[in-house]
């Protein structure tokens, strides 16, 4: 009986988690397929905070890449410089664009082939809650 209650509580908890509405909406999420000669690639998206309060996003992982990081590209002394950032904070009802030449997701060393139209399940921590966002893989060398 105890076992049954534990299972029921577990199922209920999972169901509630599934029903919980995400505070963000993500569109145009894409990752460029890695290119030969480089072990790094980038991902971009438009993220909108649809909740009533600010949200904090931390990038956790994006398999099959060995590392996934948030970076910002900034101009410094006439040079474009990239720096890792730990989190993104998006104010309530505001959007944030991860875009070429600006903030982006940086991905390193895929341990298996990543091809056009693959979907990469990018895992974030949003205000302490895990959330997965699907990014579609696209090619750079294609109009």
């Amino acid at each position, binding site marked *: 009986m105890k076992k049954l209650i534990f299972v029921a509580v577990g199922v209920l908890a999972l169901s509630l988690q599934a029903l919980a509405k995400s505070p963000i909406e993500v569109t145009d999420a894409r990752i*460029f397929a890695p*290119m*030969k*000669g*480089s*072990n*790094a*690639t*980038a991902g971009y998206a438009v993220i909108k905070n649809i909740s009533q309060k600010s949200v904090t996003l931390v990038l956790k992982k994006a398999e099959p890449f*060995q*590392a996934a*990081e948030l*970076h910002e*590209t900034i*101009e*410094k*002394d*006439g*040079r*474009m*410089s*990239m*720096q*890792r950032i730990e989190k993104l904070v998006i104010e309530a009802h505001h959007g944030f664009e991860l875009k*070429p*030449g600006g903030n*982006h997701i*940086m*991905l*390193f*060393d895929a341990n298996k082939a990543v091809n056009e139209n693959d979907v990469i399940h990018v895992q974030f921590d949003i205000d302490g809650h895990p959330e997965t966002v699907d990014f579609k893989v696209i090619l*750079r*060398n294609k*109009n």
Partner: protein
Amino acid sequence: MIAAFISLIGVAAILFYANRTPTLGGNFEAVSVTGAWHFADEAKDLNLLYIGYAKCPDVCPLALSYSREAVAKFSVDELKRLRVLFLSVDTEHDTPQSVAEYAKQFDPNFIGLTGSKNQIDRAVNLFGASYIVELNPKSYLGYSIAHTDRIFFLNKKGIVIDSITSPRSSEIIVEKIKEHL
């Protein structure tokens, strides 16, 4: 009369010298997938040069992607008078083979180059560009390279005749190519 004429020539020469535009660029050496490479050897009427590194996931592939889109607008005959060069400053990690392979994925005619640190530094200085290797222990890669984000347009002698800072569209590259080709 003669003295006045000579004075006039002298003043004109001084004014010309004072107002002349500083010249950037020239012939430079690097290493390609086939070995030693000199700009002058197979220089085209118009040469586009971008200085970056292959592990750069953001602005370098952006510039090369827009360059690819731009050159696709031109005819085969026009492209015979044009070439695109990608010069890697990451002399520690990029090899002539890896840079060549990287560049060719954007367009089979793009030429990927690197070289010794001396060769790269000389080329970078020649074009008034710059780069700094920044250690980044918090990142998986451990470093990044801050670098000039500019497409240089070079004539057949390697002289900079135009440039685009932080190219963010192919249209502006097309316009410049049309203007100079």
